[in-house]
């Protein structure tokens, strides 16, 4: 029952998110607004209800599975991908590598910059 309540709540937030986005013509996707609203709710309540915790860890622990049907969609786009395979594969590969390297380095450098005062006070946790 807990799990059912949790999944129902997630769907309600998604539904409210989708409706709000359409009504107000917001530039963000419905599930993202649903996520923001759930986050705010959790902040106000100050804890995660057991039901939401169960449902979200069930969904998030098998997140890879949820991408499989979209991945199989590749077969519907074989022609398109074959036509432009050079820009698609190179841009995708290089851009992913660049993004990952740049983000990791930026995060490492900025963490050092902004947590230095803490480290000097002996509060740096590493």
């Amino acid at each position, binding site marked *: 029952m807990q799990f059912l309540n949790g999944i129902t709540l*997630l769907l309600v937030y*998604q539904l409210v*998110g989708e409706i709000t986005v359409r009504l107000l013509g917001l*530039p*963000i*996707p*419905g*599930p*993202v607004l649903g*996520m*923001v609203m*759930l*986050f705010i709710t*959790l*902040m106000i309540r100050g804890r995660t209800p057991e039901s*939401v915790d169960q*449902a*979200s*860890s069930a*969904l*998030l622990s098998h*997140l*890879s*599975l*949820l*991408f*499989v*049907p*979209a*991945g*199989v*969609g*590749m*077969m*519907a786009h074989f022609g*398109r*991908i074959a036509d*432009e395979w*050079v820009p*698609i594969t190179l*841009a*995708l*590969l290089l*851009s*992913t*590598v660049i*993004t*990952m*390297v*740049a*983000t*990791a*380095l930026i*995060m*490492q450098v*900025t*963490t050092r*910059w*902004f*947590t230095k005062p803490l480290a000097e006070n002996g509060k740096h946790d590493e």
Partner: protein
Amino acid sequence: MMNEPGLKDIWVYLSASPLLGLTITLVAYGLAYRLYLKTNSNPLANPVVTSVAMLIILLLATGTSYSDYFEGGQFVHFLLGPATVALAVPLYQQFSRLRQLWLPVTISLFCGVVIAAGSSIGLARLLGGSMEIQMSLAPKSATAPVAMGISEKIGGLPSLTAVLVVITGITGAVLGTKLFEWIRVRDDTAKGIAMGVAAHGIGTARAFQVSSQMGAFSGLAMALSAFATALLVPWLVDLLASWLPA
């Protein structure tokens, strides 16, 4: 001879019903996941790669179209929506850690999202990709429902974007840990943020295997970058369009 019409009837029934698509998705993933564990979680045996390959081979061999398969596959695909909403939970649970690191996280996230979209548009354009391909690639680092929504808004093909999102996630999950070794980033927080920004849920699943801290930060980065991508990418596309000739 007696049996043949029977089997054919069963096949006609099955190929028209969502039951088959749904079941083969779960069975293929189950097998792929077992294979992944057998190889000691070798990133090259990523369960998304092997299950997608198995399913495509099976569908091509039986002459089943993607739309017939998706009758059943959509039930799994649909769960990406509530899973996006569910990201609020790890976000909330890591909030105290996030509050300490809010400035580095904000800066990295902003840069990461802009680099992800900017470099994919730029590289695709440089390599002669059509406008549709550039726009389909732009949101590729965000989680699928978000990326598809953005792709539609900026003139890409949402269904192609979904495929590119999956390939991006796999690329990140397979290369990630090696890349971080090469550039000598050892902090799990930084690795997690980079994984979540570049490779969304598939990268996050991989990050959780390295450590729970890397996983939590990857999930957090994926949630925040879904939000940031939705806000920033349409704006970035307008900006690039006014700078660069198409």
